[in-house]
């Protein structure tokens, strides 16, 4: 049995079904990321697991203990689940030390030693223990929040968009630091975020939510390249979605005859997806692969190392592709180019 086992979880707020039957499992010591647009119910899922709210129906079992079944739920303070919120949620009336030992019941000296140890673990100076939260930077606050949540050695750690308030550079560093600490401690982690790149980079298991339902879960790479539907595909990154005729293990579309991963029973008309990185752009026909498709540049956007290029196909000007090319390739508006597809196209079931 999985470490966390969630079955048919439902929760309504008035007329809105925030969770509409969610099933999810998390393995011991693993990192699961729940990703979805805002309002998809991912925060509600987290709050139900934490015990801040009781579900309307369904079950939550963690480490063999039932946390919630139907409308009966164990109160949050008895669950021993750590949580780090979006803005750290440090107690403004306590010092850093006061925050870290807040949930500890051990005697003073043990708490003091543990606070110092945790500060080191999350990469902060011990001298900061006497500071007030408002004297810390955002990243430091998040680290203190993590230390506070770790102080009670929780069986599960919930991270509620804890990095979203941080600057881009700081975000990656803090994410890595938090991830490393949790891995070292062997604590199963559930991260909730609306940032797909964060989700893809952090997760052992990626779970995509939309409109209160779990749409798909699996290894990040699998979900990215084989999304369950066009919306999921678009949510996880730029996607080229085309109509195609499926025949003989190939998809026949405006970009030519493409090999497909699998298309099961849905022979005939279907929808396929390519990621932009599967599309190569060449300026000369001679440097393009065989069977290249001709297109024309209609818009370019310089982004430093890369360049966003919008292309229409010569044979069908209604088909517009957004691709990324190395900025060393200096494309002019209206320039004719040649397109090749590598890898397999994904067929939506």
């Amino acid at each position: 049995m999985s470490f966390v086992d969630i079955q048919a979880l439902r929760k309504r707020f008035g007329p809105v079904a925030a969770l509409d039957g969610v099933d999810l499992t998390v393995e011991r010591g693993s990192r699961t990321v729940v990703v979805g647009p805002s309002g998809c119910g991912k925060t509600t899922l987290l709050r139900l697991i934490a015990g801040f709210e009781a579900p309307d129906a369904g079950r939550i079992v963690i480490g063999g203990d039932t946390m919630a079944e139907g409308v009966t739920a164990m109160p949050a303070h008895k669950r021993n689940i750590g949580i780090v919120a979006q803005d750290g949620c440090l107690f403004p009336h306590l010092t850093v030390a006061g925050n870290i030992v807040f949930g500890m019941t051990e005697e003073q000296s043990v708490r003091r030693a543990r606070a110092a140890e945790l500060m080191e673990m999350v990469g902060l100076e011990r001298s900061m223990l006497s500071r007030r939260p408002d004297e810390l930077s955002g990243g430091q606050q998040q680290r203190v929040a993590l230390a506070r949540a770790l102080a009670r050695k929780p069986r599960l750690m919930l991270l509620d968009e804890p990095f979203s308030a941080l600057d881009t550079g700081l975000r990656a560093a803090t994410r890595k630091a938090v991830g490393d600490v949790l891995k070292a401690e062997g604590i199963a982690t559930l991260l909730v975020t609306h940032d797909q790149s964060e989700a893809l980079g952090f997760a052992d298991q990626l779970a995509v939510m939309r409109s209160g339902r779990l749409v798909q879960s699996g290894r990040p790479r699998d979900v990215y390249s084989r999304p369950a539907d066009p919306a999921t595909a678009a949510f996880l990154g730029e996607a080229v979605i085309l109509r195609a005729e499926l025949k003989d293990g190939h998809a026949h579309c405006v970009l030519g005859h493409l090999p497909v991963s699998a298309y099961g029973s849905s022979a005939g008309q279907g929808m396929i997806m390519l990621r932009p990185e599967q599309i190569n752009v060449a300026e000369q026909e001679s440097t393009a692969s065989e069977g290249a498709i001709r297109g024309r540049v209609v818009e370019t956007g310089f982004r430093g190392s890369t360049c966003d290029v919008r292309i229409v196909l010569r044979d069908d000007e209604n088909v517009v592709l957004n691709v990324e090319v190395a900025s060393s390739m200096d494309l002019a508006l209206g320039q004719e180019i040649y397109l090749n597809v590598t890898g397999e196209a994904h067929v939506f079931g």
Partner: protein
Amino acid sequence: MTSFADSKPLSLPLPRFRSGTRGTFVLAIVIAFLALLPLGFVFWATAVTGWEAASQLIFRPRVGELMTNTLLLVLFTVPLATLLATALAWLTERSDLPFARIWSALCVAPLAIPAFVHSYAWIGMWPGFHGLPAGIAISVTAYFPFLYLPISATLRLLDPALEDQAASLGLSDTAVFRRVVLPQLRLPILGGGLLVGLHLLAEYGLYAMIRFDTFTTAIVDQFQSTYNGVAANMLALVLVLCCLVLLGFDAGLRGSRRYARIGSGVARRPRKISLGRWRYVSVLLPLAAIAFALGVPAITLSHWLIAGGAEIWRMDEIGLALSQTLVICVVGGIATTLAALPIAWLSVRRPSRKSRIIEGCYYLASSMPGVVVALALVTVTVRVALPLYQTVATIVIAYVIMFLPRALVSLRASIAQVPAELEQAAASLGRSPVNALWSTTVRLAAPGAAAAVALSSLGIMNELTATQMLAPNGTRTLAMAFWALTSEIDYAGAAPYALLMVLFSLPMTALLHHQSKKISGR
């Protein structure tokens, strides 16, 4: 401002701008001196009296009695009122108490009833009720809204995520309240408690009516026996020292820290805690509080209004008292607001150590009881500024001193909400500076100014001692008439005046309630 060597001189060069700020400073300082007049007067009076005579008047058993009374009153009333207000605020804001919104409005409504009308109502119901127990009971019911308002507003603003966080760290609901909610209520409790404490020290009518002697009642007694006598001044000195001790106590507890919400984002609406089977039992607390704070006055007033019949509605006298009261309320309210304007503007747009010190002076001055302010102004006008003696001007100055912080709080909040950039934007669109200011800050801060006038007027409406001592000949405000009639135990005749004071205070109290809701965005 960039200027080019060959361009024409600017019509508004920088130096003039600076000197203008200085002008506002000078104005603010002048008003601060005015406000500190009572304090200066008390110390001056002591110096003139000489230490020997002063100590004879101060260190005597009677002062000891008054000190004991006053101390016990403060020590019992403030904690009890805090307890009551916190419980009521928690029930109305954070629990599923039935009709919470109605209770919340009712918890503020007692402010519309002048303190002395509260005791009038209580002794109408229980004629023998007197002394310290009566003082404590009536003070708690009359003044708990001063604590309820800030505590409930803060409870609404508290980030519920902190409480969730504490629960995830293993704290039960009670422990969360004790270790997370309560510490964050420290500032509103201190602020409200200080306000209640200062009212306890300054109030005359409430205690005079229930035979409970405090420094203020003793000073008024002395004043009425000797008019500007030395003994009254010495009692005033002790009273002022009590106020200063209270202020110091508050400053010490408050510390220099503010508890701001850290981080960003909009706070989630707080979770209402289910009271379960206690849900209906809990109604008893607000019910009892409101029964005493509103029910008792309502019953006594209607009793006397019915018993008095049509006879007590002597419309000529009542009409005159009402019109005089409204005039001083409006003139006093506007003057107070205007006097608060320089410092309000400075503290928002030009905050500095200097502006904070000036602001402190106003708060210090307003903590002086009305009787001390009046004593000071009587002495000063009689001796130094006789043309001002017994004029509306003097009474208005007294109101400015006493109620300036009320106006300041509203004004500052509303000026702060108007970004200074708006003025610049208006100027860049071709408005002249005054016009730019008029069309932006003034327009947008106008509701705040209106609230400032209303809040000061509410204080003026219920003011008794200073008005009695300073008002021009022939003045008879609602409060004065009410007091004169109750002194003659004509309780029925006094009822219409009490009713009018309550009726005219109610809209302002409603405004107060509305503002506290608006500030917390709900």
